[in-house]
């Protein structure tokens, strides 16, 4: 039995703006075992990044505020630790790779300075040794050492993302959160970066949370998957559970919107409608306005998050047996 590294329970994050309260993350629970990779999948605005920033303790406050729940790293609740204690964990125990490599690096420092900085910050190393280690990190992400003293503007997007990965991995974190690390890159570079991350993960046995909206990436790299919609997790389970036997209508919808190379279809079948406005969420099940099985019950009551088969959870009345739908159709 593997040890649980991160255990998030009922995490709720709200943003108070002039236009009202935005419920960005609503009672999200997830856990990551040691050495495991969890994929968080969802549309833009589903609250994936906010969940990650919540775990990092980097939610912009104000306007954002963590309103409830717990984030256990080993057995320590990060939400109960002081700001200073959490700061010391950031970059050392938990690291994060951000979405846009173009803007994630500081333009006025050389890449080696930016990597060495995190090493000096967390380890008892002098500038000189930290710089040496930073160069080793660069070589690990396959950037030649002679480019260490260049500035971010002298690098391409894919190389910048590799520098960002080097920064994140510099202190051998136990948990790496990758927030859409390949979204801003073009397809061939995406493949390289993914390959690199898989490689590094197997070498260092780091646990990882991979945030993405790309199911292809998930199938490549993840052991477990959580599907997020409108600030909630609507389904979670092992990679096989989600890909072979998706339960929630939203999960099915996601698969339906991917083109299949083996089938000749004229149109994809996207999910009708739009992600709801997070400051004005629908009543009952948040997905009901877009769900083709929705009935009266879904509009008034919110389904609970239940285990359907061992380790496979979902949040839908159909699977609670409260709705008389013959069968939720598999994606086609």
């Amino acid at each position, binding site marked *: 039995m593997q040890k649980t590294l991160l255990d998030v329970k009922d995490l709720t994050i709200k943003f108070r703006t002039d236009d009202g309260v935005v419920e960005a993350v609503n009672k999200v629970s997830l856990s990551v075992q040691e050495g495991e990779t969890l994929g968080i999948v969802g549309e833009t605005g589903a609250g994936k990044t906010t969940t990650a920033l919540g775990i*990092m303790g*980097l939610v912009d406050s104000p306007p954002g505020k963590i309103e409830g729940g717990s984030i256990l790293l080993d057995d320590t609740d990060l939400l109960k630790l002081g700001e200073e204690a959490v*700061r*010391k*964990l*950031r*970059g*050392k125990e938990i*690291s*994060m790779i*951000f979405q*846009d490599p173009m*803007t*994630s*690096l*500081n*333009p*006025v*420092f*050389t890449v*080696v300075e930016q990597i060495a*900085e*995190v090493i000096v*910050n*967390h380890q008892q190393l002098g500038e000189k040794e930290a*710089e040496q280690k930073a160069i080793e990190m660069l070589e690990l992400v396959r950037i030649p050492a*002679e480019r*260490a*003293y*260049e*500035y971010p*503007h*002298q690098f391409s997007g894919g190389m910048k993302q590799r520098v*960002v990965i080097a*920064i*994140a991995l510099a202190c051998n974190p136990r948990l790496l959160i990758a927030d859409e690390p390949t979204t801003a890159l073009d397809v061939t570079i995406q493949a390289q970066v993914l390959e690199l991350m898989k490689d590094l993960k197997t070498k260092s046995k780091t646990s990882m949370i991979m945030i993405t909206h790309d199911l292809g990436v998930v199938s490549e790299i993840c052991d477990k998957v959580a599907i997020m919609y409108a600030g909630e997790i609507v389904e979670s389970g092992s990679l096989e559970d989600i890909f072979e036997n998706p339960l929630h209508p939203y999960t099915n919808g996601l698969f339906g919107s991917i083109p299949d190379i083996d089938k000749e279809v004229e149109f994809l079948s996207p999910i009708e409608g739009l992600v709801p406005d997070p400051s004005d969420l629908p009543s009952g099940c948040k997905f009901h306005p877009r769900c083709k099985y929705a009935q009266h019950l879904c509009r008034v009551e919110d389904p609970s998050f239940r285990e359907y088969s061992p380790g496979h959870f979902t949040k839908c009345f159909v699977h609670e047996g409260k709705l008389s739908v013959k069968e939720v159709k598999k994606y086609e």
Partner: protein
Amino acid sequence: MSRYILKRLLQMIPIVIGVSVIVFLLLSLSPGDPAKMILGLNAKEEELALMREQLGLNDPIPLQYFHYMKNVLIGDFGTSYSTKQSVIEMIAVRLPPTLILSFGSLLTILIVAIPLGIALAVKQNSPFDNIMRVVSLFFAAMPGFWIGILMIILFSVKLGWLPANGFDKPSAMIMPIICSSIAGWAVNSRITRASMLDVIRQDYIRTARAKGLKESVVIRKHALKNALLPTITSVGMAVGGCFGGSVIMEMLFGINGMGKMMIDALRQKDIPTIMAGVIITAVIIAVANLLTDLAYSYVDPRIRSMYARRRTIRKEVAGNGSN
């Protein structure tokens, strides 16, 4: 980099020539007879003619200019028409107070405006920020000489803390420097605040926080260096303003500086003194602008790489790293 500096220094030659030609022409063509200024209104016509001949005023204007510049090149700025002193000696006395006043103002702008701007950005929308918004607007809008008069009334007349004129001791320097820089504090703290606010929302600041750096390090190291560019532009332009403004401050506080010397010389149509003052001021402002541009490239490597060829940068930076 050194090539760039050399190029910029060479570019100063046409600037100085252009400025001196225009000023020389304006002075020569404007009414008033320097010979009369020197000998007085009662001088005889023969004496005046002799004086004009001695001063070379009968030569064509281009020739006069040529003679003048030839002497300037060997360091001879001539003799003042009104005081009969060597212009160089006059300037040697008059330049230091003006330099202290101008660069002192500039320095206080940097010392006050940048930390203030950072504090305002970090404490955005706090009561402190809101109060400073109004205070800044007030000081940016008030003329420096008016603030100067109020300060003289308060600190010299009522309280007797500071001398009202002169520039001979540090206590006498306080009021002139504050008066000529206070608008600069206000304007530049607003600029620094605005660009800091822009920078602290950037992704790379989030990256810096994700490294677990202390917030003070994030602000001072990662945000400030990026936020400084607009402030450098504004402070660079303030150099000219401080020099021009020193004329008013020197008159107000009775400081024997370049500004006061130039006003006196203009009244007397003292061509050598005016020319020397203008040329020296032009050179100082051009050098200050060059320093501003060098400050840009110090702060932002992207600008540096536009100046220098790529390979030389790589060598330079690699050299720095191995030290």
